[in-house]
């Protein structure tokens, strides 16, 4: 514990020095009222390939706005689809053809006109690179005058969500290696500067066709959570995203604002026994403890989620027993929660008994023990894994929380528990979570290109 605090303190000091350096470079931390200094990870971490929607910029599970680029549709505050570049659209009865008319008054920031050809190009390119939205159902996008016709390889009612997911780039001169450094788009802002590892600066696009924002300039700092909180205490930023662990702090001149999200935390539990099955990339599949449905059921009905939300999430969250956030149109009633006695009965009925008196149940010589892995960079995931392990003991299940990087988690993701984060406004997420055809080895090659954005 002590080491962690010392590391935290060192990071904070480094961060303050870092901010001071940025501030000195800019003259002072004071800025004009119509300039904004932020420290938010709204679109994930600093994008490796820059601000290129073809490489996934602006797509971080359906529902984000790339700002520098426009999209065909957007969502409004009630989660309805509204036009952005689209003037109107039609969907064929068989849900295999989506036809969008593109507005004709939009210019890219280099002065060139945005056309249906640019839209078709962007979708075909995004599909080819496969780093953002899942466009696997799209056969091709083709311009036809001021229309773009999306031809799908199967009926896909969820494809309308994909029309919000890809920022549009100009076909002329597009280069997938360099565009992200100097993006040309048609959104409300344009990229003015990107100091890698430090910050990026956006400036208002004077030619933007939509509602004009008040802020002329946005400087967004890349700081880790300790440094972000230090920046708040120092009065250096207008707004900073902080982990829920900081959310009960008070700082003069600031107030806390918090938003419900559809971002759910859940722990995958291997449903198969370990029978020697390997995934195509030779990763062990299955676990002889979680492979027993009674173990999974006992955990699901026995763990007290409200206690977890109050503790691990500092009260900033909502219980969810089924992985579907209550704001989503496909949400449904919650299941059982915190029923320790019932959980114990489920285990006993399935033959799990504590025969050696250590508080942990066994069956056929197998102890009810497994590990839950979490991304060590996510403090709330660590807190969840540790608290679940503590509660599981009461039910008679021994869980070892293991922190690591995604590289550490990759080899065990099919054989141990893993803490995941999901939260898309697109119901296709259900397919990603549960469809057997995406998991089993024979299907693996067709699905591994789907997404690199889950964290």
């Amino acid at each position, binding site marked *: 514990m002590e080491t962690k605090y010392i590391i935290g303190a060192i990071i904070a000091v480094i961060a303050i020095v870092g901010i001071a350096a940025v501030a000195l470079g800019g003259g002072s931390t004071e800025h004009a009222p119509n300039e904004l200094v932020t420290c938010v990870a709204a679109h994930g971490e600093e994008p490796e390939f820059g601000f290129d929607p073809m490489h996934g910029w602006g797509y971080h599970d359906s529902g984000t*706005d790339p700002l520098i680029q426009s999209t065909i549709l957007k969502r409004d505050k009630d989660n309805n689809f509204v036009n952005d570049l689209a003037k109107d659209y039609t969907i064929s009865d068989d849900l295999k053809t989506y036809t969008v008319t593109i507005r004709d008054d939009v210019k890219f920031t280099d002065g060139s006109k945005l056309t249906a050809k640019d839209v078709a190009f962007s979708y075909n390119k995004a599909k080819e690179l496969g780093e953002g939205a899942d466009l696997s159902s799209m056969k091709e996008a083709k311009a036809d005058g001021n229309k773009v016709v999306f031809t799908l390889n199967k009926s896909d009612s969820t494809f309308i969500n994909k029309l919000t997911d890809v920022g549009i780039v100009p076909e002329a001169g597009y280069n997938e290696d360099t565009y992200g450094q100097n993006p040309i788009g048609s959104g409300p802002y344009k990229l003015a500067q990107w100091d890698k590892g430090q910050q990026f600066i956006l400036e208002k696009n004077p030619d933007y066709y939509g509602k004009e924002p008040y802020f002329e300039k946005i400087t967004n700092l890349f700081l880790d959570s300790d440094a972000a909180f230090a920046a708040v205490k120092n009065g250096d930023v207008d*707004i900073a995203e902080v982990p829920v662990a900081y959310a009960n702090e008070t700082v003069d001149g600031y107030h806390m*604002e918090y938003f419900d999200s559809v971002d759910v935390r859940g722990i995958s539990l291997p449903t198969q026994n370990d029978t020697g099955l390997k995934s195509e990339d030779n990763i062990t599949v299955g676990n002889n403890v979680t492979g027993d449905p009674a173990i999974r059921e006992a955990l699901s009905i026995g763990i007290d989620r409200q206690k977890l939300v109050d503790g691990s999430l500092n009260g900033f969250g909502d219980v969810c027993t089924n992985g579907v956030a209550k704001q989503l149109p496909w949400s449904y009633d919650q299941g059982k929660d915190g029923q320790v006695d019932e959980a114990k009965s489920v285990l006993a009925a399935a033959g799990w008994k504590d025969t050696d008196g250590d508080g942990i149940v066994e069956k056929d010589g197998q102890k009810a023990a497994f590990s839950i892995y979490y991304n060590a960079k996510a403090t709330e995931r660590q807190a969840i894994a540790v608290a679940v392990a503590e509660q599981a003991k009461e039910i008679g299940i021994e869980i070892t929380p293991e922190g690591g990087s995604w590289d550490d988690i990759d080899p065990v*993701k099919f054989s141990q528990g893993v803490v995941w984060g999901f939260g898309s406004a697109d119901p296709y997420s259900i397919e990603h979570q549960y469809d057997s055809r995406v998991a089993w080895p024979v299907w693996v090659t067709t699905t591994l290109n789907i997404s690199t954005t889950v964290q």
Partner: protein
Amino acid sequence: MAGVGYDNPEYLNDSAVDSLIDTAMGQDINASYSTWSQASQQANSNYPYLWIGTMDYTYFVSDSLDISNSTHLIYPHGGDIWGNIYDWNRINETAEA
């Protein structure tokens, strides 16, 4: 890279789920939501995940800044605080951030 091949890591194999997914894909989007619900319920009858909860996104906001919290959009995984940037304002121009 993070999460490559994260799909169905629990190796759920339930043909009733697969078939509900196919049905939902072929329905009008508004009609499909109840089918997606059923697919999720069918999947969760196998308890493939220990679901915990949704998390809030928490921000320290300068008292001089109005981020118009009545117009915020749905918060997906990763959040999107800038989704309503068009409505943000400086409310007290003399207050320095």
